[in-house]
């Protein structure tokens, strides 16, 4: 089933043509990456999907319903964790539930249930400044998940982390996803990351961004360190490199 479908999106900012006929499809329980150079308008695409900005042309369908320009259905996560520094981790993560009209006590209780599987156990009452970068990103991911647990938009979520933490986070993400049943649209400019995580990769061109090619990644799951060095992995990587 199609979870999310983006059809023929066009967007310009003044004379700057950012997105050109972008169409993307995300199936149920699928991990799809958008790979492209920085500044190619990938983030503007996310703003359109989440409803924050309206495309000049084209539509966004979520479960076959038109959601173009409507907020409140899917949320996104960025490179910056955007946790509120004045709230504890538990309160931060509960925000999406509060916004949905769930009572504070119930929201906190529900959010707390996910803390150990997100590797945040014991840090419920800590403030964001007391956590490491990796933990803050995990908290931000949990917040995104609690808002829209079927579709998540992740915009270079590990871009700000060091290489080692980043690798760990990628493996952790795969692990966690196995139990979460979520469809994910993931922006990155790291080729390895895209191949390692995805079922499908959309390679974007430079501005104006358009879909250059779609790769199906048929690497077996669960994936681990040996995936990174296997032949199929290198083959896809070579193909993508020749394209960029």
């Amino acid at each position, binding site marked *: 089933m199609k979870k999310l479908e983006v059809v023929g999106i066009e967007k310009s900012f003044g004379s700057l043509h950012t997105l050109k006929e972008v169409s993307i499809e995300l199936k149920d329980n699928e991990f799809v990456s958008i790979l492209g150079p920085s500044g190619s308008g990938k983030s503007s695409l996310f703003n359109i999907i989440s*409803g924050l900005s309206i495309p000049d042309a084209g539509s966004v369908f979520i479960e076959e319903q038109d959601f173009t320009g409507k*907020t409140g259905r899917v*949320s996104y996560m960025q490179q910056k964790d*955007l946790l509120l520094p004045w*709230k504890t981790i538990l309160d931060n993560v509960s*925000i999406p539930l509060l916004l949905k009209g769930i009572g504070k006590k119930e929201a906190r209780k529900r959010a707390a249930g996910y803390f150990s599987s997100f590797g945040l156990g014991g840090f419920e009452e800590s*403030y964001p*400044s*007391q956590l490491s970068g990796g933990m803050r990103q995990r908290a931000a991911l949990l917040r995104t998940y609690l808002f829209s647990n079927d579709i998540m938009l992740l915009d270079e979520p590990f871009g700000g982390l060091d290489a080692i933490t980043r690798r760990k986070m990628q493996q952790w993400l795969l692990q966690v996803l196995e139990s979460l049943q979520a469809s994910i649209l993931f922006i990155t400019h790291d080729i390895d990351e895209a191949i390692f995580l995805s079922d499908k990769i959309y390679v974007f061109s430079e501005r104006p961004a358009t879909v250059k090619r779609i790769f199906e990644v048929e690497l077996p799951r669960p994936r681990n360190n040996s995936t990174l060095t296997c032949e199929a992995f290198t083959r896809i990587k070579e193909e993508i490199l020749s394209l960029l």
Partner: protein
Amino acid sequence: MKRLESTSKVIPSSIMIMILLLWEVASRRSIDLARMLPPPSEILITLISNIQVLWQHTRITLFEALTGFVISIILAVLLAILMDGIIIIRNALYSILITSQTVPILVIAPLFLMWFGFGYLPKILIVILVCFFPITISLLEGLQSVDKEMLNLLKSMGATRFQCYKLVKLPAAMPNFFAGLKISGTYSIMGAIIGEWVGGKDGLGVYMMRVRHSFAIDKVFATIVIISLLSIALIKIIEIAEGKMMPWLQLQKQKNMEE
């Protein structure tokens, strides 16, 4: 860390003690000087022996200052939120607010007295006039400097305007708000004193005028001591409230120090 903190307190207090000692010795050696600048010990004695009278007046001044201060806070919060939310109001009010601060208080105070009589009202109005401005401006600045991405995230999750203020904008502006409060806190006592100075029945400002006219310089100084203590106490209370309301800020500061 600990040592740094204790030395940072020792140095200013030892400088204070040195100045007081120097003052004491100098004014004890010269009678002419003592007439204009009584030694600290004598000021202290005057303060203690007149404490009842002083307290009567302090109560009044404190009442005027605090009433004005609280009204200023309410007024400032309303103004800042309105100015932040509605551009037309911001543009319209900004220059009016600035102009309100260019009017010299010493000129306006006697006018207030004529318009509103000798009671507490004109004093409270002067306190409001000097206090609301720093709070409004700092709160407004805080509200406008909020991380746009944070707001966008909340909006993407369907937050209403009210929820954006409650969850992000107001808490983010808190440090600015408290900075404004500290400035206004000291102004509030000064404002009340100036109001009383121009005319009234009681209050520290009235008392100070009275003792000055009778050349009781030691009593003038005793009043100054009280005024300073009141201002310091008010600032301390605001600082304590700040720490209580923003425990996260303390943690961030600690972290910055460690790095």
